[in-house]
């Protein structure tokens, strides 16, 4: 109960005029940064970090947290309207968000995303308030074998979902995994797969580069070719009444995904190294698995938007926990926030909750307020984003190409990355023509760099014995579930054959 009184103080701090103004500005700026393909919360927070030295530390981190929240909401916007995930956390949002937009239901998708994000953020805040110290202990019990098991589970939800062509899905995952190994290898300390000895590959291939290539260039080319430029996205004019109706529909058809995403996202987000991307992906997978109408997924169901969106917001809050309690950033963005805290003279770590309780609860209080602010600001801007979609495709398509190139360059300021975007875009176009799903490749490039080192660390720990993934109390059950999920399609196939025989 002590926590609650601290929290009340924290909320009051966040509601001070200066802090409230910072929250509103931060959320709005974050929303647009997140909506820009290529720019995500990492860039937003990094760019605006120096500005925060003008205000007291408490207000500064509140401002950065507001940007972070805004960008998390914003990520869904480019996923839905342009079909380009602005950040790795929003990849799963494109699966159903984009089809909805093409059916003229962009506003339903965006309203669902906003509401789900709000619920996800709030659930996470409540869990955070009640169980922060306990969860920090839980996070510590996740070593390399546990993280690897979790990554295996994330891949398994993808393969095991079935529906798509499984060999092609596996091909796509492998492609992403190979691209993920390019660059510098942490374990051996040697560069790997530096293709054609081009120095740019030493840095490796980033998620943004592949995602913008695949979605911003490849997908767009494919759409142009399919439709010969006659894309008809009949997004009706936005009216207040229409939005109210969308809100009702979003609640009715998205509540299930929202809950799954909120809970699952938080627990995955709390683990350092894992973060929001596997959280959103796994939530999408689980939502589809427990759904009564799994065939609707991928064609545009609000549940398919709600699950990953609730999860990525929930996980973003979750990833603050290891940062605050252990001093370990759960995501690149929290890494920069962590840098900020050190600059302000705060030491994140086990003592922070005790020594700086006013700061910590002020921050958590600002999460609650930021989340509410983000919901309303986001809802207010939805008509603007939908209006964008009503532009003729002949204007929208070149605009998306330009945004892709600018966003791709802004992220790393390297021409090497731009050429890669173009090459990936063209390759993706041809793969798309042969019906290869490319989302698995994009996700593999995010999860691969987590999965590969943790697997090798685990095997180093066990002197090469793979049983380490089965015998540890937490890793074991996760690995078993993952393997069952991977084998599920095969089991289903066997069953069907058997029932055909008996029939």
């Amino acid at each position, binding site marked *: 109960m002590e926590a609650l009184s601290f929290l009340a103080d924290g909320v009051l701090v966040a509601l001070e005029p200066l802090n409230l103004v910072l929250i509103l500005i931060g959320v709005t700026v974050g929303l647009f940064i997140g909506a820009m393909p290529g720019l995500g919360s990492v860039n937003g927070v990094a760019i605006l970090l120096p500005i925060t030295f003008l205000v007291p530390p408490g207000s500064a981190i509140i401002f950065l947290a507001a940007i972070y929240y805004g960008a998390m909401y914003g990520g869904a916007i480019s996923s839905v309207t342009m079909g380009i995930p602005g950040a790795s956390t929003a990849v799963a949002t494109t699966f159903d968000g984009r089809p909805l937009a093409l059916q003229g239901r962009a506003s339903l998708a965006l309203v669902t995303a906003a509401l789900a994000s709000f619920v996800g953020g709030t659930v996470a805040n409540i869990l955070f308030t009640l169980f922060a110290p306990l969860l920090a202990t839980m996070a510590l019990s996740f070593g390399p074998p546990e993280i690897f098991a979790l990554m295996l589970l994330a891949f398994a939800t993808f393969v095991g979902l079935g529906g798509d062509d499984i060999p092609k899905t596996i091909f796509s995952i492998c492609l992403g995994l190979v691209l993920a190994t390019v660059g510098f290898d942490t374990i051996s*300390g040697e560069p790997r797969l530096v293709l054609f000895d081009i*120095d740019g590959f030493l840095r490796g291939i980033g998620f943004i580069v592949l995602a913008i290539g695949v979605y911003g260039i490849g997908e767009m080319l494919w759409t142009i070719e399919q439709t010969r430029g006659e894309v008809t996205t009949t997004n009706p004019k936005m009216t207040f009444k229409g939005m109210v109706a969308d809100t009702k529909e979003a609640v009715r058809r998205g509540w299930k995904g929202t809950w799954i995403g909120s809970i699952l996202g938080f627990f995955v987000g709390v683990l350092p190294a894992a973060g929001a991307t596997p959280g959103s992906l796994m939530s999408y997978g689980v939502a589809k698995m427990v759904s009564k109408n799994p065939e609707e997924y991928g064609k545009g169901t609000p549940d398919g938007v709600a699950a990953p969106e609730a999860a990525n917001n929930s996980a973003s809050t979750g990833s603050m926990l290891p940062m605050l309690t252990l001093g370990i950033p759960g995501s690149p963005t929290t890494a920069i926030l962590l840098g900020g805290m050190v600059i302000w003279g705060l*030491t994140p770590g086990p003592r922070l909750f005790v020594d700086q309780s006013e700061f910590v609860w002020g921050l958590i209080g600002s999460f609650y307020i930021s989340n509410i602010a983000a919901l309303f600001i986001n809802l207010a801007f939805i008509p603007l984003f939908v209006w964008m979609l009503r532009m003729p495709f002949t204007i929208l398509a070149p605009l998306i190409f330009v945004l892709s190139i600018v966003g791709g360059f802004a992220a790393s300021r390297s021409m090497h990355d731009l050429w890669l975007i173009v090459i990936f875009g063209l390759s993706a176009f041809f793969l798309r023509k042969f019906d290869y799903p490319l989302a698995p490749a994009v996700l593999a490039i995010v999860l691969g760099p987590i999965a590969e080192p943790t697997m090798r660390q685990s095997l180093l720990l066990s002197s090469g014995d793979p049983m380490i993934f089965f015998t540890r109390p937490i890793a074991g059950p996760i690995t078993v579930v993952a393997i069952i999920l991977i084998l599920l399609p095969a089991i289903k196939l066997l069953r069907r054959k058997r029932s055909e025989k008996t029939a």
Partner: protein
Amino acid sequence: MKLTKRLFLGLAAGTALATLPIAALAQDWQPKRPIDFTIMAGPGGGADQIARFVQSVVEANDMTNRPLIPTNRGGGSGAESLLHLKDARDPDHTLMVTLNSFYTTPIRQEGLGVDIETFTPITMMGVDPFVLWVHKDSGITTFEDYIAKVKEMDGEYVMGGTGTGQEDSIVIAYMAGAYDLKIKYIPYDGGGAVAKDLAGQQIMATVNNPAEAKGFYEAGDFVPLLAFSDERMDAYPDVPTMKEKGHDFSYYNQRAIVGAPGMSDEAAAYYREVFGKVYEGEDWQNYLASESLSPLPMDEAQTRAYWATQVATHRKLLSEIGG
């Protein structure tokens, strides 16, 4: 307002460097473009924290007429940064914040063709010592206990670090060689992750920088056993050094700002003045104290000599550990 600030800067520079002819040059040259402030590591690590701290001090006191633009180029263990500086199109506006991969990466990857002695020394902001840590639940309280435990486990003792050929693997390799220890070494991609897995007892010991382990030490989870510094550290007066144990070995992570090869003397003088002021300022001095960094002020000639010895030392250490 502007006039007075410039006047003040001029006065300060004039009095501080009145005896040096450089002072006159420094006033002649001003950045014409935003300054590329490359960071040799990814976001969140020690080098990144320092770069952003320095940037914020410069920004808050309006010390440059053009902004510093920090960009993380940590790829290839710093190779990306080294190449970026080597091929800089505008050396007068290209700076880098370094760690020890500044020495090790050109040795380990000769194909890069990077010779750090061509780089321009700007300011040595401090050096970061290494300390050997264990978890309090291990029951180990002295370095001798630790040695006995490692020997007893005969190859099953697990330590974590930031990758083969990186700073802490050099320290561990030296220690293992000096005491004939068999250690199972697990590489991670950052000092923070290493400290976290020691806190969770996934690994048994680490050599972290004090800044990375401080939070857990203050909470009572970590026990420091040995410092790899030249003298006992102020923050850890009871922790003996490797030198006291009879081995002439100390190891620090360099926290320095360097300029691209081919930077003009005027530009270099300008940056030395700016970062020299940051170094002397209260903010940085407090940071040095709170993060247990050691000061190591050097001028240009001393820095070049220091680089030469560091390269030689690292070449020797790396060949010994076969990295």
